[in-house]
């Protein structure tokens, strides 16, 4: 039974769009008319994105290679473009960027339709941002979706290059090859951040460690793009030393990606420890937790990373 895309207004002037596995929490700031036009544009673009993506699912679930066919859908192309820079060095499929690409596409439809001061499209924690140079947004970070609490926040300024935020980890909705509780990446688009976070989370790992239980991806989800690759299904408590070693492995990957221009900054979380990559003034993990953000968290199902603005 095909459920139709659904749209609902949430408290705080937000828009919730839902279709199949996609849940978007959207907020735009600007003139009241502009916000309405932008929301209408978001709804209009949202109406058929799932069908559009599903027509190319087999291609999008296949390993990206330099000779991969170029998909035809706009979102599919965003996905393919986001993973293309990594496909020679790592196993990755365009699906690694699906959530971010959807967020980018909807945000683009909104900003094309009306002038906005700022806006976000949050696709389950993968967030596309729009900011005028004099605006900023505060992003709250959550490492454990099963025990949501903010472990820190990042202030993104309109003058930064950051327009996308994504979080990946084995506890999230998607499978991970690694053991990171959460890797949050700030990049120039949500699709870029999504792909980079996936790769870094995969790299936060302790190969062969006894505390880690893995299972072939297709044993959990017959259609997983990861096929028979072993995905993390349980991690018993690690010693601080082991957790740090895993994070350092991830940090190497993050630095590699940062030098390649694939991300602006990243925060890697495991067992209560955090390592930061490329952090200037943009990212801090000790800022006070804004209560508005925690409130937003409790009401938004499936939300991995929260956005609040002041």
């Amino acid at each position, binding site marked *: 039974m*095909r459920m*139709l895309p*659904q749209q*609902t207004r*949430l408290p705080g002037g937000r828009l919730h769009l839902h279709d199949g596995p996609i849940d978007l929490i959207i907020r735009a700031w600007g003139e009241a008319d502009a916000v309405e036009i932008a929301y209408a544009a978001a*709804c209009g673009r949202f109406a058929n994105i*799932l069908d559009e993506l599903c027509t190319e699912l087999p291609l999008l679930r296949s390993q990206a290679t330099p000779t991969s066919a170029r998909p035809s859908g706009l979102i599919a192309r965003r996905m393919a473009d986001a993973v293309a820079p990594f496909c020679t060095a790592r196993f990755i499929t365009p699906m690694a960027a699906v959530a971010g690409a959807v967020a980018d596409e909807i945000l683009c439809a909104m900003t094309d339709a009306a002038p906005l001061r700022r806006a976000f499209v949050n696709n389950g924690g993968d967030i596309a941002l729009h900011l005028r140079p004099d605006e900023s947004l505060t992003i709250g970070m959550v490492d454990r979706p099963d025990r949501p609490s903010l472990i820190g926040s990042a202030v993104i300024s309109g003058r930064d290059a950051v327009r996308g935020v994504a979080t990946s980890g084995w506890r999230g909705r998607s499978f991970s090859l690694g053991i990171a509780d959460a890797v949050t990446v700030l990049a120039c688009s949500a699709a870029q951040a999504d792909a980079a976070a996936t790769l870094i989370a995969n790299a936060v790992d302790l190969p062969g460690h006894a505390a880690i239980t893995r299972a072939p991806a297709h044993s959990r*989800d*017959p259609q997983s793009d990861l096929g028979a690759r072993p995905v993390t299904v349980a991690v018993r408590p690690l010693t601080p030393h082991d957790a740090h070693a895993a994070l350092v492995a991830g940090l190497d990957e993050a630095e590699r990606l940062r030098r390649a221009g694939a991300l602006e900054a990243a925060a890697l979380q495991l067992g209560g420890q955090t390592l930061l990559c490329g952090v200037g003034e943009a990212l801090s993990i000790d800022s006070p937790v804004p209560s508005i953000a925690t409130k937003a968290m409790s*009401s938004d199902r499936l939300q991995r990373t929260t956005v609040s603005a002041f």
Partner: protein
Amino acid sequence: MSETDDKIRCDACPVLCYIRPGMTGACDRYANRDGELVRVDPHILLERTLQDGGEVVPFMSQAREWSGDIVNAPAPIVTAIGAGTTYPDYKPAPFIVSSQVDGVDMVTVVTEGIYSYCGVKLKIDTDRHLGAECATVRAKGEPVGHVTTGEYGSQMLSLGGVNHLTHGGKKEGRVTCETLLKLCNRKAVELTVDGGATFIVEAGKPPIVNGRLEERMRVGCGSATIGMFAKQWYGKVDEVVVVDDHITGVLSEHQAGKLLGARDTGIKIKGQRSTPGRYFHVAEPGTGWGGADISDPLQIVAGFNGKVAWPGLTMLMVSTTGEQHAFYRLDDTLKPVEAPLPDNLRVSVERIRENCEPALCSVLFMGGAGGSLRAGVTENPVRLTRSVRQALTTVTAGGAPVIIWPGGGITFMVDVTLLPDNAFGYVPTPAIVAPIEFTMRLDDYAALGGHVDHVRPLRDVLAQRGKKSNGFGVTPARSDA
């Protein structure tokens, strides 16, 4: 890939996930439980309403004492709000629930209907002229309906309907859908009538016409008001004119005045005399006295007959709501001169006002349960219609009673204030999504070709809900149900 047979394929969305037992699909909403595809997200709207501190009072017997734990509530009604649906309904309605009521197995078929054929009937309690009959009603400049009949103390509007939703321009359909949704969810909407007034309407609230809050609904037409208050006026004043755009009443000529022995005053009222003491069309419709376009009531008085009237004759002029009133005394040339209202008449004016009920806007959602929705309930859709006709099946919307129109189809109306907050939704088609439940005896359900194999005992629904593994809108029973 070697795969075991226990996985199932979900067809809720085009992703078409294969789901292994105990796992959910990509959406986390549908899961494979013992080989069965089940929906696992909690019913969205009611829960969200509670989360936001919203009001669900119409269904609660002890609102303040209710902990919010839906499962412990006694004798729940399963509502369709948030049940979700498909269009067309080629699958059984999302939830088919059975419960025991008086030892009879009852089935409530719970679904949310998507209504392309729907609208609202709006009753606005006001004497003020909102616009001519048949005039176009606009929201945000788009035509969304029209002014229909004037009724007792109120003006009726008919909004939405398939012509505005789907046959007009794209923007017209969108604005119509948005307007209907807001009205149904008890939000305020600003409407403008071509050549008429601009007003703000909200279900259960007084209308605001041209920026002015309407407080009272008329006690009756001008003539009826004379009849009601003639005794209280007789002997205290020589003439009373109740100014009303529909039927203006004149005490001395009116049957009620005659019976009391009221003396002729020789007053000449403009307009068209219907029967003695009853005048139509004394002025043009407007937003002044008694719904006419006048701010000075003497505008409707043509004069006094010099052979009948006398200097010193007293006259009270009052509107049908008592909100406006003026007292006059004729001078030597028989011209009315305004004077202070004597205290013994003030009481009667206040009584008119006191007898006027608060002015409100009422919104009835009207929708037709089409063949496809009925197919979600039974394999032979027309039998559901017949069953409703035979009163074997009770139809409710979000647990609220509905009025079913006679004739073909299942076309119903429901007072939107009886539904929980935000019970209505929409799809971009555009169309309104509204809850609808069909309740009938289990054997009747089987007899009309119901999807009996999809019936699930209520206790299971509740038990599963407790474990947050099922998505039903379960609302405590109304205390008066």
